[in-house]
């Protein structure tokens, strides 16, 4: 019985739901209503997963604090709880003032614009530095023709971003053409791989859920 609930039922539900959604694109006149219901269920499940995810996140950082592993986990824990409390209050205020949503505090955008946005921008800016460091490391460690090709094309792409001279443009176009071919090949492979995985899940060959 346990196996039925942990293995058979999830697999059958996944297969049927997947088939209905797939077929609903071909026969929308018959199956569109089912698709809408299934997508609504998926949204609710995803919402619950997010809530569970938040609990997991708190649990992870709490354990790390208890094990005295990392001071940053304490900060993460406090900030997560604080933001959760503040945004919950804001949502509740908006809920009670449904006719005047503006009466709620603009905390959501405040948290995003003042904290999350700047932190992400900082990390984004660091990316450029890390990429430079990675390129240097690559040149030191792997002295191959492939490395040389990679670095030359990266330098050409960077230089042609500067609107000073058009001298390197033909070389850039040459690299772009090669990169585009490779990119299309890569995306084609990804699309085929995605199809194969979808196929295996629909046929219950792959069972990512259950035992």
């Amino acid at each position, binding site marked *: 019985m346990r196996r039925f609930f942990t293995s058979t039922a999830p697999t059958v539900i996944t297969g049927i739901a997947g088939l209905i959604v797939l077929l609903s694109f*071909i026969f929308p006149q018959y199956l569109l209503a089912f698709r809408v219901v299934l997508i609504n269920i998926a949204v609710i499940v995803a919402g619950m997963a997010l809530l569970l995810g938040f609990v997991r996140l708190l649990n992870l950082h709490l354990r790390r604090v208890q094990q005295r592993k990392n001071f940053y986990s304490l900060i993460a824990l406090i900030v997560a709880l604080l933001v959760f409390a503040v945004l919950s209050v804001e949502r509740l205020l908006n809920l009670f003032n449904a006719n005047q949503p503006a009466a709620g505090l603009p905390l959501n955008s405040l948290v995003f614009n003042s904290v999350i946005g700047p932190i992400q921008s900082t990390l984004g800016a660091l990316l450029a530095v890390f990429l430079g460091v990675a390129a240097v490391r*690559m040149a030191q460690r792997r002295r191959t023709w492939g490395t040389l090709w990679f670095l030359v094309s990266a330098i050409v792409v960077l230089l042609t971003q500067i609107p000073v001279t058009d001298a390197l443009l033909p070389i850039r176009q040459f690299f772009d053409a090669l990169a585009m071919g490779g990119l299309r090949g*890569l995306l084609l492979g990804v699309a085929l791989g995605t*199809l194969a995985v*979808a196929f295996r899940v629909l046929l219950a060959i792959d069972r990512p*859920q*259950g035992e």
Partner: protein
Amino acid sequence: MNPFLENYGGLLLLISFGALVFAFFVMFRTSRRRPRFRAIHAFSLLRGQMGRAIESGRDLHVSIGTGGVSGDDTATTLAGLAVAEYLADEAAASGIAPLVSTSDPTSAILAEDAVRRPYVRQGNLNDFPRGAARLPALNPTQYAAATMDLLNHEPVLANIMSGAFGPEAALIDQAASSHDLPQLFGGSDPRALAVMATSADQMLLGEEMYAAKAYLRAQPWHLASLRALDVVRLVIVVVIVLAFFIGLVS
């Protein structure tokens, strides 16, 4: 005509053809020998990796990326999970699990399940280390920062990244490289692949990722799907080349 068929008729034809080829390889498998595919060194590197981690007393970090299981990245995330499950399978007998991390709550649930499954199969669920699947942050960039912290402060033997990643993978790469950790990267996003090409020891490029189960487990169904995929790819290449020459001539 049905608008879906009008727009996606070719795709449907391709899927039907792929399904037929797959059915052919499943039903008419005349030889008992395993079909030969080209060697992918990244998968060879994975074998025994967990054993080395257990011997050294350090963790094996497996990141399945920032994708969820209800969007564009579903297949990529599932492919990443296959790698995590394989490593968990290698480790289940010893009661040590790889440290799997993600930034998506739905993937975290599946990851926990994937790591737990080998313990269920081997009947030693009591040894399952709870919390093996971690969710250190809920956003890709923050996740990358949290993973940097993990690699900087916890004893990790190797860093394996297989799943949906964006350019933020460079942040994780920086932390792993500064500790000289061996790295294996599998991804489908060209930006992440370009970034990781600078330092990853082994890479799974695009389609190679989705072949993880066939290479690591070699089950007949997975091998048949891989062979079907090769045939479909060959047909597409032939069609593209033919279309090119027909266009050239006409």
